[in-house]
Structures are given as C-alpha cells and as structure tokens.
C-alpha cells in the first residue's frame, strides 16, 4: 500500500472547547499511572488503614470503651482522630509520591521533553501547575478521600456523631489541610525532580528528605532537644495542622514555627522550579 496516498490536509477546527494546558498535563499524568496494576495495588494498600479505622469505629459502637483502648485517639471520630489518621498515612504518602512524582520533571529533562512542551503555547506556570496537580491528586487519593468516606461512615454508624461536625467541619478541615499540604509537598518533590535527569536520584533525595529528617527528629526528641525537631519534613505539616484540627502539637516546636518552615520550603521549591525548568535541550 502506498504510504502517502492520503496526503496532507489542513486542520479545520471543530469548534469544540479545548482544555487549558495545565489540565491536559494533569489529566495525562493522572491517567497514565492508574493504568498500571501495581500502582492500583499500592493505592488499595494505602486504603487498608482507612478500612481498619472504619472497622474500629463500627466495633466501638458494639464494644464501647474496649475499642478506645485498642485504637486510642486514632479511632476517634473527633477532628483529632482524623488528623491522626492523615498522620498515620505518611508511609503511604512517602512511597506513592516517590513513585509518582520523582520522574515527572526528571524524565522530561532526560528525554528533552521540555523543549517539546515549551514549543507549544504553554507557560512555565501552566507546566508546573499541571505537574503539581498530579502529585496532589495521588496525595488526596490516600488521605482526603478516605477521610470523606470515613466521615460519612461515622455519621451513619456512630450515634454520637453530628452532621455539622462529621459531614461538614471535618471534611472541610481535611480538604483545606490536604490541598495546602499536598500542594506544598508536591512543589518540594517537583523541585527535587527538576534538579536531576534520573528519577532514582530524586527518590534518594526524597527518602532523605522524609525518612532521614524524621529519624533525626526522633533522635533529637530522645535527647530532649525539641528545637531540633524542626528538621522533620512531614512532621512540620502535621504539627502546623494541629490548630486547624484543634488538637495538641505533634512536635516539640510550636505550630506557628512549623507553618513558617513549611512556607520556607514552599518558597524555596518555587524558586528552584523557576530556575531549573528551561526549554533548553539537555546535552549529554
């Protein structure tokens, strides 16, 4: 069959509405990982604590204080219990974000994809926003979405729960927290991703950032040096959220200081992204 028999035809726009570029990037970035079974399995595994918490809430109804004894604050249907749940998801967040986010910019840099992106009518802000939404989506998938489901479940099953608290205030608090914390974390992860061409190195840096700082924080706590806990990366987010969920601080530093640290990380990440993302070809 001759290859070129159809020839080239000019494009006639159909008049349908086009999506903004950031949404196109986010849509593809979200749908591609969800096609992989092992990522779906990872997401399902991240939902196990939510299922356990749901079971404990149900058990509490039947066994009263015994459930509180087993689950502690984590099983509570008060805001404190939901912050504890989000805090308990940190391992899933760490693993999932490392897998999803590490290559988002690094692979574009490696394959000279940035040159392709920025040959389109696309700005830096749209590119970063699109990539950021991918990470925020997966963050919310294992934190915010379970909170929504558990809130609804609690309202339906626990006699002491009120619609105002469990159906409105807790989801609202969780939404504000997850969107802000997710955006900030994703910017930091993307900044790491923009600094290299290989996702494995980004994963290493992310591990140091999350696990390394948490270890240092734990050692500092053991030595009674609470001020050093300010290095705990994920801990700062949970500590800063303490006032939002009306609960006790998570670390030995005040939530205000944690908020400042988180803001500093976010601003630093934006600066790195602005400096590192350029449509110049990678010369190896």
């Amino acid at each position, binding site marked *: 069959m001759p*290859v*070129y028999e*159809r*020839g*080239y*035809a*000019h*494009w*006639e*726009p*159909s*008049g*349908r*509405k*086009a*999506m903004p*570029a950031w949404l*196109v*990037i986010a849509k*593809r970035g979200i749908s*591609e990982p969800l096609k992989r079974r092992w990522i779906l399995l990872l997401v399902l595994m991240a939902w196990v604590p939510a299922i356990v918490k749901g079971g404990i809430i149900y058990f509490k109804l039947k066994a009263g204080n015994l459930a509180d004894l087993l689950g502690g604050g984590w099983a509570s249907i008060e805001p404190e219990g939901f912050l504890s749940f989000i805090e308990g998801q940190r391992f899933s967040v760490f693993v999932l974000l490392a897998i999803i986010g590490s290559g988002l910019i690094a*692979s*574009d840099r*490696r*394959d*000279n*994809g940035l*040159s*392709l*992106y*920025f*040959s*389109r*009518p*696309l*700005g830096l802000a749209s590119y970063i926003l699109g990539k950021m939404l991918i990470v925020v989506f997966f963050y919310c998938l294992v934190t915010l979405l379970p909170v929504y489901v558990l809130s609804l479940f609690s309202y339906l099953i626990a006699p002491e729960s009120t619609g105002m608290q469990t159906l409105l205030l807790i989801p609202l608090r969780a939404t504000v927290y997850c969107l802000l914390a997710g955006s900030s974390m994703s910017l930091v992860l993307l900044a790491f991703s923009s600094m290299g061409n290989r996702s494995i190195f980004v994963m290493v840096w992310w591990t140091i950032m999350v696990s390394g700082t948490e270890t240092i924080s734990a050692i500092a706590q053991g030595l009674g040096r609470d001020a050093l806990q300010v290095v705990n990366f994920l801990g700062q987010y949970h500590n800063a959220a303490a006032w939002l969920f009306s609960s006790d601080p998570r670390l030995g530093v005040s939530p205000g200081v944690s908020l400042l640290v988180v803001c500093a990380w976010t601003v630093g990440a934006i600066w790195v992204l602005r400096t590192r993302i350029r*449509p*110049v*070809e*990678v*010369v190896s």
Partner: protein
Amino acid sequence: MKQNPRDFVIPACQCIVQKNGEGIIIKANRSQTRIEVKDLTFAYLRDPVLKGVNFTLEPGAVGLLGPNGSGKTTLLRCLLGQVPLVTGQISVLGCDMARHARLARSGLGWMPERGGIIPGVSGVGLVAYLGELSGMPARDAMQRAHEVLHYVGLADERYRKCDDYSQGMKQRLKLAQALVHDPVWLFLDEPTSGLDPQGRVSVLELIRDLAWNKGMGVILSTHLLADVEAVCNEILVLKQGELLSRQTIDTTGVDPHQVFEVEGFGNEEAFLAGLQELGAEVSVDQRLLLVTMDLSNLDGAGDGKSLTPTMGVNAILRVAADNDYALRRLRRRPVTLAEEFYRMVEA
C-alpha cells in the same frame, strides 16, 4: 484560519480573539505569516552566539546552513521564543516574540534534533497529547493525530510504544507531532539526522511536499547541504553567529555565474585577452584554465531573461576560433551548493 465577523484583532500583538458559544479563544493571526528579525544579538553567557542578525522571511522552504556552533539551533530557539530576548526584535506571525511568544507558538511547529519523544506513550497518544497542549480540543487532537501519522507513514505503527520505534520512525514521529496543530511555520532541526539513505529521501519528500505543495513555511536547519538542495528555495548561511549570506536557489532558470574548465594549445595570450574582453576571470588550476563568466554581461543576454544554457560555451568557442587557440577540452564545471557554502564559510 476562518475568520468570523465577530472576531477581532488585538493591535499590540496582532492576535485574533474568537468568540464562540463556549468562550473566547485567542490565537495567532495566521493571515500574517512573515518572520522578521531585526538586530538580533543573543548570548547564553558572555560570548554572543548570535550577532546582529537581520532578515525577513515569507513562507517557503528556507535552509539554515552553517558549521557546528554557528548558532543555527539558537536562532530557531529565538524564533520559537524559548530564550529571553535582550537585544533585537523578532516578530513571528505578527506577534512580538519578546512579549507574545506563547500566542505565536500556536502557529509554529518544532522538530528538535535530540530527544523529543516521551517514553511509555504510544505514537498516536504522544501526537494527540501534544496537539491538546497546542490548544486543540481532545477529540480534534486525536483525529488529527491519526491523520498526520498516516501522512508521515506511521499508520501501522501508531499504537506501538514510542520507545520501540526505530530511529527513522522516531524522526517521522517528531515530524508528526510538529504537524499536528497545522502550523504556519515548521522549524526542523537536523530532521534527517541518523536516517538511512532511503529514510532520508522519504523524510525529505515529506518536507518538500509540505513546503512546495501545502503552502507551509519550513526552516530546515542542517549541515547536510544535499538536504537543503533537495528541499529549499532559499538559504541563510550563518557563521560564528553572523548571517553570512542569503541566497535564492534557482532551479528553473539558467545560473548567470558559470565556471568552465578549458584546456588547449596555440595563441594562449590572445585567447586570454579575448576572454578578458568578455569580462571573464581566468585562473590556472594545474593544466586547466578555469574561466568564470557572468553570462548576463554577454551580448544577447538582454536583462538576464534570455540566457541559454549554451551561451557560455558558444562565447568561449568563438573567442578560441578568433584567436587561433585549439581547444582540447571545454567543460562547464557545476558549482554545487557545497562548493558555494565552503567558499563562503572559508572566505
């Protein structure tokens, strides 16, 4: 692009604002197809890569020639608005690239030399994705992706992952992604790099078809002179960041500047004097006399429109006969683009 009576043009960037039932779309003005570069000087660090470049291009097939490091790719990046302009002015499709580069890019297609493939995606997925990023609706982009992949000869391989493509298929895929949004200008950076002879010819045929039959402007940056000769009707030669020359490749008429190899015996002095009377320049290359003639200076050349291919040969034969010079050899030496290019670059 069709214009409705409700469309209007923003004077500052010459962009068209289209209103439809679902909102407002701002697009580059495709009725303005010219590229204008004025006093463009650009440096990545200290040393300027481009120095005072000036030219104006109308859609056509333009070859961008130059040795390695002469600034070809940087010039294309400047035309795409991918690097910040400090000195000089670039206007593409009526848009000032210092301020409205994003709008102009909706009418530009870019085929990079290195990379440019997003791994893990099928060919059609990649082209449709980049079409959507160019501002096309999702369904239009997918439909168009199938069309352009068919055009470049990847119809049967469009569902395969890009990673599995051969080098030739990757080059075709890169051409397809540059075409998906139907650009006014196509910027190609070494499009035949790494291709076998057969693949090279077919890619050049596609580019030639786009430039000569579909009215698309093409800037072909390459160091392969044969590629430029096969496709382009105009060349820009860059050397060390400066625009050395701009020439038109005339494939239809007779080139008035011709060089002849002459060998013979007899009254050589009189023969040379006769040639000089015709305005020819003569140099000696071993046993051969190299006669460079401007045919438009000969009697009967008129204003240059009545030149014939045998005019130069006939003139030399006449001078030889008049001056008792017996010719043993008379041959027109073809001046290739390569010779012309090296002459310019080495000068």
